[in-house]
């Protein structure tokens, strides 16, 4: 079973040189920590920076330099600042090659729900709806089940949707799964996790190939 950091580590393997990548809040943010030194990748944060760097050294933090999670950050050489309209022009215009974000639920046709629990939680969608409606390559990073132990990989989302038929791949603490033809397709198992455990934790239709390799981290 993967830790949150391991999920991020596995997703970092998907990132290719030359890509601009938008990382959502939570587990996705951790992906930046596992990009190999020297790989030409730039991180976009939708509040207005390309070329986001690590947290600042203590004492150098700047209230005017934050990421979309409102955390103080730094800028890498070659970074650029811009306004929110330009930021979403990049996203909507498909200039960002990969989007990684968290989810409360994902369905087997690629729908995603991650912004609202009616009557309980109403934080808002932020930039998530623009991201999922536009990105060509979306990976969801999340736990396979919620705190009550219920599967988050469903035949259909029960919560208000963030986007429809947009998620291509899901990386959880249990597995890597691709979404196509209305089903989850098991691609890799987390180390030490059996196919049966994944089947039990997946409520949506799951296609299991003959051989399911274990992830290499």
């Amino acid at each position, binding site marked *: 079973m993967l830790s949150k950091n391991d999920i991020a580590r596995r997703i970092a393997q998907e990132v290719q040189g030359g890509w601009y990548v938008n990382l959502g809040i939570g587990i996705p943010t951790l992906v930046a920590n596992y990009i190999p030194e020297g790989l030409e990748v730039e991180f976009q944060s939708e509040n207005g920076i390309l070329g986001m760097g690590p947290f600042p050294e203590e004492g150098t933090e700047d209230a*005017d330099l934050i990421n979309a999670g409102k955390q103080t950050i730094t800028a890498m050489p070659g970074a650029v600042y811009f*306004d*929110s309209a330009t930021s979403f022009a990049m996203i909507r215009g498909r200039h960002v090659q990969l989007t990684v974000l968290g989810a409360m639920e994902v369905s087997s046709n690629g729908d995603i729900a991650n912004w609202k629990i009616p009557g309980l939680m109403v934080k808002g*969608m932020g930039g998530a709806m623009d991201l999922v*409606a536009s990105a060509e390559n979306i990976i969801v990073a999340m736990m396979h089940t919620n705190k009550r132990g219920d599967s988050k990989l469903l035949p259909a989302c029960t919560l208000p949707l963030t986007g429809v038929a947009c998620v291509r791949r899901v990386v959880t603490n249990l597995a890597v799964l691709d979404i196509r033809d209305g089903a989850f397709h098991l691609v890799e198992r987390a180390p030490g996790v059996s196919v049966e455990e994944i089947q039990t934790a997946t409520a949506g239709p799951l296609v299991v190939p003959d051989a399911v390799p274990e992830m290499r981290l």
Partner: protein
Amino acid sequence: MAITKTVKDAQAACEGIESGMTLMLGGFGLCGIPEHAIAELKRRGVKDLVCISNNAGVDDFGLGLLLQGRQIRKMISSYVGENDEFERQMLSGELEVDLIPQGSLAERCRAGGAGIPAFFTPAGFGTEVAEGKEVREFDGKPHILETALTADFAFVKAWKGDTAGNLVYKATARNFNPMMAMAGRITVAEVEELVPAGELDPNEIHTPGIFVQRIFQGDRFEKRIEQRTVRPAKA
């Protein structure tokens, strides 16, 4: 000859504000928010405001200050976490809330300032956001029609400004400020440093002065940090 936009302070800049008006307020989280204008709105006690702002501040800073005083009737935002009073007022029905995707919010403000009454975007198709909105396919992909937003007053915060209203923002404190500056019938800019017209490089201005009606230098900016994340300083 450059057109002078200077006013003395936040009080003079808010002249004409009335209860019931629609306001835009720049900023992302607490970054790049018009602190002085918010303080003056609180002082004036205007009520029934419709506030267009990406976020709603925290309980004791930013728009949270106006929520405390029940001055806001409706919020148009994309993300409103981090504010207990907000959540309470919204769940109890005291506060009307229109949540819209962040990119659509930015683009709708820009459209309002740019004389584009409506545009199509893929964001929100198939979700609550699309309810009641026209859907049309382009290149086989469904899009929804979103309309422009404008405001009676827009409040923005910049790093430097000149007496002609030209503005330069710093780092990610730019965010929604430029588009909101465009979309205000009266746009009020508060800046950390106000210089005479001609001192800013005309090639490096983010918001042209034509979009700004009033400008003043704030006397002290708190610039509170919402999430202070750091790594150890190198020895």
